[in-house]
């Protein structure tokens, strides 16, 4: 619209004139007459609209309304167009096609019976006046009515370039001094040097901190939900961030040692709430958050009874947090993702690592995106297989270890299938898989085959390749990731049939998903949007991209996992009745995770 205005060439064409003439019963309007009319009407319309903008400005609005046009007609001594006034803004819809663009008004047909029979519309709320302090003695208080006192951009600037803050202060003092000299006022050299002391929290903030921390780790579930809600949405928390982060770090340190699963879960949920708060920029506090979160992933024991408690969910949850942290706050200066990746790789390479930690490292890597999986997990599948094989097959092993091993196996299959499906050309040969992946080969083969049979649309493959290309480019640009040394030794796989059976029995929980892709329309529509969004987005999204485009059902699987995780968390400390209720709550949470 604005570009038309800029050139001033928005004019009614002569054809419209003819059509309008016909509509009032004047047939066969000559071209020249139509042109004259069009010119005249263009002029009149434009002057009316110019006048209407005056009414808009005086109404302190930014959008022109139909009433403005009426008023403008009135001052031109023209009868207004009665019946076209509208309280709301006209919901013009836009359509284009055949090189023509059209704004039109949707004219819905209403059934009079609905109007008569329907309930009365709600009364609009009355105008209310509400006072708050925009500033107290020159300082803007951090209340919900006020915008966050330090915008996220500013926090980012300050954390990435602390000098800018200093420069600003210096600038101010300098300015002060120059202007003082300019006025030749008696001046005293009072340059205030700000001491590097910890920022004092106001009494309200101290109270808030106390309440929040108690609620987060306390036993009242409703209060906890409120506390998380507050952490995730309240503006102006940035002053308390150092305290909150220290609280989390200390809490994790203590509880990991004492193997208290529940507090760890709460602390991780705190991290998640802080991460999702739009007004916070956590980069300055990563040195506390990253170790805490990683501890919750790779610690060898997180709960008192590893065989019974579902600490795997905590590891999964934390790994997603780490992935999100990397995605949001990775910069070339902090090299966050590189360092995290290296940490996990080293853990994978270490043979003495307990299986639980091994799982943590693996899940951490797998959350970091397709490229990371391709670079660091695929070469190690053989080693992973070797590692878990004795626990799964052998007898007389500790029960905990067997559970850990089977978790690792499931995870590997879950992570690898979408990638293998794309990278490897069908037909799949069991022997090839065994050759390449050793012990896990047959299981992978079975899963990939199943996945292939479920994918239907060929259109998606085109999308995938483009998405993959995009993510490739991104990773090439980073180029700092070094391949961890992968050693693969040949392993014989026994008990093949049981593995397949195992894999086959596993996906029962994916059942509701499998039906999804059978409706191709549904699949393709979200696919395209997903791709556009993610390719243009940050590079870290690449993993999700492929997941989303390649196999929409895996996104769902993924989410079902997420759903599962917190349920188990609740179950870990609560009763089984709680489980059902909380699952609903958490599901909604998951949707936001996916949307992120």
């Amino acid at each position, binding site marked *: 619209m604005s570009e038309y*205005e800029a*050139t*001033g060439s928005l004019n009614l064409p002569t054809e419209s004139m003819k059509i309008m003439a016909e509509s009032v019963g004047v047939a066969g309007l000559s071209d020249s007459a139509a042109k004259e009319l069009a*010119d*005249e009407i*263009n*002029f009149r319309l*434009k*002057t009316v609209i*110019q006048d209407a903008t*005056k*009414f808009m*400005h*005086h*109404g*302190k*609005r*930014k*959008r022109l*309304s139909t*009433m403005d046009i009426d*008023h403008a007609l009135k*001052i031109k001594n023209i009868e207004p167009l009665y019946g076209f006034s509208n309280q709301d803004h006209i919901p013009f819809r836009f359509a284009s096609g055949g090189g023509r663009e059209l704004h039109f008004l949707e004219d819905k047909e209403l059934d009079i019976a609905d109007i008569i029979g329907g309930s009365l519309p709600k009364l*609009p*709320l*009355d*105008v*209310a*006046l*509400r*006072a*708050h*302090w*925009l*500033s*107290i*003695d*020159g300082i*803007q208080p951090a209340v919900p*009515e*006020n*915008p966050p006192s330090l915008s996220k951009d500013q926090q980012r600037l300050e954390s990435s370039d602390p000098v800018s803050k200093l420069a600003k202060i210096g600038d*101010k003092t300098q*300015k*002060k001094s*120059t*202007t003082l000299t*300019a*006025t030749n006022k008696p001046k005293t050299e009072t340059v205030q040097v700000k001491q590097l002391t910890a920022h004092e929290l106001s009494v309200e903030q101290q109270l808030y901190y106390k309440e929040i921390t108690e609620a987060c780790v306390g036993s009242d579930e409703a209060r906890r939900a409120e506390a998380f809600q507050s952490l995730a949405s309240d503006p102006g928390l940035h002053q308390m961030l150092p305290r909150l982060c220290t609280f989390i770090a200390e809490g994790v340190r203590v509880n990991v040692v004492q193997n208290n699963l529940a507090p760890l879960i709460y602390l991780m949920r705190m991290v998640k709430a802080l991460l999702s708060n739009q007004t916070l920029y956590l980069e300055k506090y990563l040195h506390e958050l990253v170790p805490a979160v990683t501890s919750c992933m790779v610690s060898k024991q997180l709960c008192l009874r590893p065989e019974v408690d579902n600490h795997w969910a905590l590891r999964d949850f934390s790994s997603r947090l780490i992935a999100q942290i990397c995605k949001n706050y990775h910069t070339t200066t902090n090299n966050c993702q590189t360092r995290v990746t290296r940490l996990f790789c080293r853990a994978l390479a270490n043979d003495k690592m307990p299986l639980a930690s091994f799982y943590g490292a693996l899940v951490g890597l797998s959350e970091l995106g397709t490229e990371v999986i391709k670079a660091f997990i695929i070469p190690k599948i053989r080693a992973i297989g070797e590692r878990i094989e004795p626990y799964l097959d052998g007898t007389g092993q500790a029960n905990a270890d067997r559970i850990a091993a089977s978790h690792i196996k499931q995870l590997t299959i879950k992570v690898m299938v979408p990638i293998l499906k794309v990278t490897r050309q069908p037909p799949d040969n069991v022997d090839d898989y065994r050759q390449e992946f050793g012990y896990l080969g047959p299981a992978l083969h079975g899963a990939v085959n199943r996945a292939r049979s479920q994918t239907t649309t060929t259109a998606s493959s085109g999308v995938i390749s483009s998405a993959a290309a995009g993510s490739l480019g991104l990773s090439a640009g980073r180029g700092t990731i070094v391949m961890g040394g992968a050693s693969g030794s040949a392993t014989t796989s026994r008990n093949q049939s049981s593995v397949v059976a195992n894999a086959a029995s596993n996906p029962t929980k994916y059942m509701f998903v499998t039906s999804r892709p059978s409706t191709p329309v549904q699949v393709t529509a979200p696919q395209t949007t997903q791709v556009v969004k993610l390719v243009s987005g940050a590079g870290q999204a690449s993993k999700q991209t492929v997941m989303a485009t390649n196999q929409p059902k895996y996104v769902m699987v993924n989410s079902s996992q997420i759903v599962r995780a917190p349920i188990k968390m609740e179950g870990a400390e609560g009763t089984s009745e709680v489980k059902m209720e909380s699952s609903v709550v958490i599901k909604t949470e998951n949707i936001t995770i996916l949307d992120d």
Partner: protein
Amino acid sequence: MEYSMNQLPQAINSDAKTQSSENQNSEVVSDNSGGQTLDSENVDSNTLAAVLQFLQKHNLKGTADALKKEARLKEDQLRDAQALQVDSEATNLLSSYKSEGDPNAYEKAYLSYRRFVESSLDVYKHELSLVLYPLFVHMYLEMIYNNHENEASKFMERFSIDQEDYYQEDLKKVSFITKKEHMKGSDLMENFKSSQFTVRMSRDTYSVLKRFLQDKNQSIVMNVIQEHLYVDMYEGVPRNKAQVESTAGAMEGEANRQVNKTKIYYGLLKEPDIQLSVVEEEEDGEPGEGGEKPKKKKPKKDPLLNKKAKSDPNAPPASRLPLPDLRDIDKLEKVRALREASKRVALGPDSLPSICFYTMLNCAETVTCVEFCEDSSLLAAGFSDSILKVWSLVPQKLRAMKPAEQLADIDKEAEDVLVRMMDDKTGETMKVLYGHCGPVYSASFSHDRTLLLSSSEDATIRLWSLQTWTCLVVYKGHIYPVWDVRFSPHGYYFSSVGHDRTARLWATDHHQPLRIFAGHYSDVDVVQFHPNSNYVATGSSDRSVRLWDCVSGNCVRLMTGHKGTVSALCFSTDGRFLASGGADQKVLLWDLAHGHLLADLPGHTMTISSLAFSRDGTVFATSSLDGSIQLWDFFRMTDESSLEDVNISGHNPDLLKRSNVIESLRLARYPTKATPVMSLHFTRRNLLLAAGMFEG
């Protein structure tokens, strides 16, 4: 003679707008001559002829005859004048755009002038470039007039982007005119045709220009400059780019220096002595009140208050404008104000004011104006659905007067008669006033909080009683929407402005305006009374600010520099300065003594909505529809702009334009979440109140 010829059609035009009916006719004439009667010698026979012609054209025979009789004009004399008039109008309307045979000559002429500007010395370049815009517009109009439509639109397309940004909006309007017939009804056209575009130039620049015109034999350019430009020449060094830009931008060019020569009394009126004695009495009478020490109060009094007591050399004589006598209730109010003032917080860079923000909820895009009353106890809001709401901001509820029969029972001698006559049963925190039939564009409280004025799209101004909560008077005079109305700080008088390009001064007990201030070239959007009530400032869509003398009715200051519609005005506490804000997102500060621009305060990103000076005149607050409030160090602003070092030739002194200085003057900036700020107000104790509607 030439001048008056040019002005005539304009006069007729503005008259045509102001006259809705016959009976207003006489008032217009008398206003133009500053209250003199018709038989005065001063009435130009040409003016009369113009009026008569207008009357005849509109078939107002009775008035025409009456006017003839009254003016004792002889018929033949009239005929002469009329012939002359018709003749002059014809020449003015038609032949001012002479036909140039070749439409392409314009393009060539424009190009050659542009080349000349580009190649001239840097010293002269900026002043010479001022001619480009009027030259361009007049050339375009000439082409249209001579039916070279295609060439004209090409000309427009090719050169309109050369023009300054702030002219683009006008150019858009000009470009709508694509036919000779369109020229007739267009307001903008009439402005260009009838008025002269003022260009200020140094003598040297002017001689350079003259030499160019003579050497190159530029007849077209010469014509335009002679016909439509007024060159305001001054001795001295040509101005630089910043100086030129700071005052350019108005529809009629720059302010003519001659206009701003009149002396104006910008000082404050002497406060009546009576109040001091009342203060003492009151203090004696209530020694125990609040445990204050009344004796200490006197020496502690503000310097500003003391100054008020002395007579200001710049203050107008007290008898200059008749003001209503103080009633007892006014005196009590003054005492209250003084007592409040003594508790005032001294503001400065180190002690910023607190801001209390009133957010109006559930009314996105329907609130058209918000206004606080002087003592901050009431808030009025006008809505686009024609209603007016008044809130009480203090615990006292809004009460209506008792019905007449009950009032009769009250003892009139009682101390608390004012309290007794109010009906407690009617107490509410918010009252609605119904009456207008169009959006309410402004509201203004009288200083005693008993009256409220409102102006609306329905072209009326209504006076409401805040005691009976009814409409008392409907003032009909404007025939187009009234954009703004404002009570005088002393009550009784009020002033209104509107789409009809006039500002009017009214008294509450007259149903017709006392003065009509005509002179703006477009809508007058905002009006503000000087603290001494003797002057009225108006801001207009022609991007100029004018100051009018309420006594003589003359325009005494014309200030140009805004690049968009002026949307807010505010006088400084001491009456010397005027701040204006506009749709161009600028806040400009003017020195009324000479009409000079002192400072240009940037930083807002949308139309400026409101301006306010703290009660002690140290802090200046600006607000904008972008939802932010900024505070400025006004004390230093005036301190640093060398007020005494005033250039006699009428230049603006160097602006406080160096960005670091301006930045250091800004004390703070407070954003809101999603609330465009619509109104600002400092309470008597220097708390800043702000209001706006939530748009989230």
